[in-house]
């Protein structure tokens, strides 16, 4: 193992991650648990960056440490952050602990059969993956292998993953969204008393007003430059969504919804998936297979051999649009309890 120059650092981080996971689950205050879980995700993203997975680390930093913490916090804002402690239940917890330990022991018994950590000749690393590394430049002129595999070689996967995000967004709408007409005629739902309104703070407001344009510029760079550096539609979309979520938190939900009405949001979530699918259909109309960008070269600008690179960019923009607006829509639903009037 000493071949890895800083493997001690990896081991330290891995132990820290387990500690953070235990703390996140044992802390009594749920708000605290959410914040520790954010720190856990950030530790995890350091580990992945150390293992050479820069794109994954970037995504985890934006999604795991950023947006999902915000989701948990906005859920707690509408509900309650305190856990009710009740006596008993220890025997049940210990029993589950025993079951889980046995399951873990079974998994660990398979440990000697796994290839050594960091082996480059393991089946995972030696069979399919080298093709992508050796041929991506010749095939698509995209130096970031992750981007070219994501949007080109395995474009179907990404199309359906984007669809999953879209479906999750619809699911959250159908679970939480409250009909306005019903709300007015029926008994008024008890609105939660806001404990703290950050919109009152001048410092928070001015600081976020200053930060948001830079965040959006960076996010656009991440989407457009995903071919040459870590990043792409997922990461850029999440950062774009986070910039507007920041506006919604620091001002209020109303001012965000004035710019992006509910209808526009949902249309744009669908538009991203549609753009992705339409690029695939365009390839078919030009005589190729679905998502075979080579056939788009007569429509797209640039040389013939750059067609795949440009096709990837189009698809990434579609992914970015869907992810951005679905993050915003999910946040608004969770923060306002589906009422779209006020919230975190």
């Amino acid at each position: 193992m000493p071949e890895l120059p800083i493997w001690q650092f990896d081991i330290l981080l891995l132990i820290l991650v387990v500690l953070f996971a235990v703390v996140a689950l044992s802390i009594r205050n749920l708000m605290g648990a959410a914040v520790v879980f954010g720190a856990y995700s950030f530790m995890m993203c350091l580990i992945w960056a150390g293992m050479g997975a820069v794109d994954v680390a970037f995504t985890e930093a934006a999604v795991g440490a950023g947006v999902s913490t915000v989701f948990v916090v906005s859920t707690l804002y509408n509900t309650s952050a305190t856990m009710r402690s009740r006596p008993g239940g220890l025997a049940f917890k210990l029993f589950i602990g025993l079951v889980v330990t046995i399951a873990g022991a079974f998994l660990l018994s398979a440990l000697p059969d796994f290839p050594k950590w960091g082996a480059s000749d393991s089946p995972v690393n030696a069979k399919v993956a080298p093709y992508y590394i050796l041929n991506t430049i010749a095939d698509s002129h995209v130096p970031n292998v992750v981007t070219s595999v994501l949007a080109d070689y395995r474009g179907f996967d990404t199309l359906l993953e984007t669809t999953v995000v879209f479906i999750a967004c619809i699911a959250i709408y159908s679970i939480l969204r409250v009909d306005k007409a019903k709300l007015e005629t029926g008994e008024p739902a008890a609105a939660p008393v806001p404990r703290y309104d950050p919109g009152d703070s001048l410092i928070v407001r001015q600081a976020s007003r200053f930060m948001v344009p830079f965040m959006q510029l960076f996010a656009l760079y991440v989407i457009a430059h995903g071919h040459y550096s870590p990043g792409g539609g997922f990461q850029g979309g999440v950062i774009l969504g986070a910039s507007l979520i920041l506006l919604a938190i620091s001002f209020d939900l109303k001012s965000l919804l004035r710019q992006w009405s509910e209808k526009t949001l949902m249309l744009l979530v669908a538009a991203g998936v549609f753009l992705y699918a339409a690029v695939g259909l365009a390839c078919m109309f030009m005589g190729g297979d679905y998502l075979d960008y080579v056939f788009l070269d007569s429509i797209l600008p640039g040389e013939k051999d750059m067609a795949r690179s440009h096709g990837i960019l189009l698809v990434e923009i579609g992914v970015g649009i869907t992810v951005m607006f679905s993050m915003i829509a999910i946040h608004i639903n969770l923060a306002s309890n589906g009422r779209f009037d006020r919230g975190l």
Partner: protein
Amino acid sequence: MEKLIANFNYVIVVILMMIGLWSMLAQKNLIKKCIGMAIFQTGIILFFISIGAKDNALIPILTEAANHTYPVSDASKVANPLTQILMLTAIVVGVATLGVALALAQKIYQQHSSFDEDEILENERK
């Protein structure tokens, strides 16, 4: 000990998955269950990333700025991109499913004003 260090990543993967599974089964609080689900998921992602890691390998971005030389002749010096992209999409789908889980938890809280499983069940029986 040598053996343990050589496979340390798998040990941590199993521990994280079991912590997450324990939390989903044993914790009574719905939010804690959601966090446990997310921990289980990051355990699996860590598994995929660590089997794709290679000793002394560079990041899978084949530019000169990342110390690569054109054309790449030795694939064993570049980290595995395939496991990475599978996990990249899994993370984004993970946050979407976490959102659905939290939405369900909120809806349950509206009905029962509690995240506690036992209290919800008592309310149901009334």
